[in-house]
């Protein structure tokens, strides 16, 4: 009965308990670890449930639909909740080590608050509810950003705040106009009533909604908040941001395009395709310019968001499935890469590639994990990224979009350049100063566990992609209903 809202209640409860115990870091750690494991358990139970039944839902207060505020856990929601649970577990583990952790007693409450906001946004089936959870996630991420307290952190917070607020306001405007036009906020009710509204009005409102989600997903012209803020974060927050924040926008966009406004107006879809291609290219070129590890990886996030948007712009079932698969793969791989960057920082004292080097001789294990994650991001078989890109490129070719397929492969080559730049500079070349000694990691067990866990999952997805591809195909089928 209460199960569908558990992904919201568990992190919210953990966040509250962590706030109450803010004078004891030891206690906070235990609560946080327990909360993360509980969320992971919830996600697995939900996954098993939705694999049996299509989706499970709960309308609050037993109000009949469409009046009750509905929460629906379908396959897409369950998958993203699982990613969130896994990431918050790894971040909690990471925080126990001494590799670039966050130093604040409000880290844990805000971390779980952010997870609560994102998980609730993944499972919300009501537009206004979605807006509220976007705001919860925004407020918690602002707190995590501002924690550093120096001018650099506050400047990043300001940019993040102002640009994300514009996105949120666009979303609120779209909610108001949609409610005025249809009288509904529930996704199912909206999907049924949009056909009775004047198509010109509908196209404008849908465009506004898509625009709002594009700001949240950090797509091409709206991405400025992402590279302005990510590099100021400590490693665990950074990994969580990269895994969850843009996915909130992506998840909402998939739902909007495939189940609410379906079929979406053709001009909007071709615009989305252009935005996707520009995001891919601009992101990867921005990454090629930078030498700071975190900035390189942040720009790659924009480029990878472009791939997901490209898959969505195809507006087919297989395209949706590819976008979901890619979102999952990207969350895990990008978080892992940011954590590797934090290891490089800890060992050699710098995030800038010009000041590091010689790590292959010192830490061959770390080098191997980095190479695995980097090749997965590029899309080399047998890692998870290969299947993500394969699904997208194949669907592009099936739909006759040869230019898009070509550009997707070209951006893959440029991604390879960036990743090899990091590999050569950080691991392969000798360290710039001759008498350099790698710093000692005092508590290596939690961080190593986290990184190995991620790598094993990515390798497993790469070697045995079939169950996951089947799952995301079912998810896409469910989103589009069962009509052909």
């Amino acid at each position, binding site marked *: 009965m209460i199960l569908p809202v558990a992904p919201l209640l568990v992190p919210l409860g953990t966040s509250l308990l962590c706030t109450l115990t803010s004078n004891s870091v030891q206690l906070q750690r235990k609560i946080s670890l327990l909360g993360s494991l509980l969320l992971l358990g919830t996600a697995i139970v939900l996954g098993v449930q939705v694999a049996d039944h299509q989706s499970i839902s709960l309308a609050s207060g037993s109000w009949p639909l469409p009046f009750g505020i509905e929460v629906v856990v379908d396959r897409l929601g369950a998958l993203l909740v699982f990613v969130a649970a896994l990431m918050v577990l790894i971040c909690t583990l990471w925080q126990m080590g001494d590799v670039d952790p966050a130093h604040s007693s409000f880290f844990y409450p805000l971390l779980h608050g952010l997870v609560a906001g994102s998980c609730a946004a993944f499972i919300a089936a009501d537009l206004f509810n979605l807006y509220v959870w976007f705001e919860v996630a925004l407020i918690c991420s602002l707190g995590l950003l501002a924690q550093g307290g*120096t001018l650099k952190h*506050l400047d990043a917070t*300001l940019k993040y705040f102002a640009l994300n607020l514009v996105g949120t306001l666009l979303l*609120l405007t779209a909610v108001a106009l949609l409610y005025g036009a249809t009288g509904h906020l529930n996704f199912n009710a909206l999907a049924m009533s949009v056909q009775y509204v004047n198509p010109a009005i509908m196209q404008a409102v849908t465009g506004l909604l898509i625009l709002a989600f594009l700001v949240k997903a950090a797509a091409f012209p709206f991405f400025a908040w992402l590279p302005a803020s990510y590099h100021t974060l400590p490693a665990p927050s950074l990994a969580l941001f990269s895994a969850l924040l843009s996915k909130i926008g992506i998840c909402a966009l998939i739902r909007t395009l495939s189940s609410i406004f379906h079929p979406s107006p053709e001009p909007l879809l071709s615009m989305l395709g252009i935005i996707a291609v520009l995001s891919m290219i601009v992101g990867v070129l921005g990454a090629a310019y930078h030498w700071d590890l975190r900035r390189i990886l942040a720009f790659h996030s924009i480029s990878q968001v472009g791939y997901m948007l490209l898959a969505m712009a195809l507006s087919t079932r297989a395209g949706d499935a590819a976008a979901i698969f890619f979102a999952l793969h990207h969350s895990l791989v990008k978080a892992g890469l940011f954590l590797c960057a934090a290891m490089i*920082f800890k060992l050699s004292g710098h995030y800038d590639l010009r*000041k590091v080097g010689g790590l292959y001789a010192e830490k061959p294990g770390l080098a191997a994990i980095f190479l695995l994650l980097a090749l997965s991001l590029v899309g080399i078989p047998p890692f998870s990224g290969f299947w993500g890109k394969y699904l997208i490129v194949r669907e592009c070719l099936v739909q006759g979009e040869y230019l898009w397929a070509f550009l997707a492969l070209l951006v893959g080559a440029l991604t390879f350049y960036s990743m090899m730049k990091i590999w050569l500079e950080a691991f392969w070349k000798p360290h710039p100063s001759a008498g350099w000694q790698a710093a000692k990691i005092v508590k290596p067990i939690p961080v190593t566990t986290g990184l190995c866990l991620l790598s094993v999952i990515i390798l497993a997805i790469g070697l045995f992609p079939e169950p996951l591809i089947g799952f995301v195909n079912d998810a896409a089928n469910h989103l589009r209903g069962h009509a052909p």
Partner: protein
Amino acid sequence: MIWAVLIATGTVVATGIYLALSRDLFRCLIGLALLGNGINLVLFSSGRLNTQVPPIIKQAETTLHNAANALPQALVLTAIVISFALLCFSLVLAVRIIQLSGNDDILAIRQAEPPATDSIKPALEEEP
């Protein structure tokens, strides 16, 4: 009534956008807050406006006649609370930034993304 709300919304949104585009940090944040309030007005007016009948269903009836929809009013209250919280946060943020940098010109606050000194490679940064 609807025209009054329309003109008010338009004025508030226009003022908000004008101020939000300002280089002055406080004006920019006040502009964003005003923009939020203008959009709250849009949300408010998505229920009916031209009626003063209370939204109570009379006995022996099942539907409301001519009353304003109460749902957007509930939604707008939530939105007001959220935008107020964000306004408070942003003002504290602005005060702290001005204290630390001694400057309220947004273009001069470049600590997170320092301008490039070299045309090919980005500047080397001081680590935290």
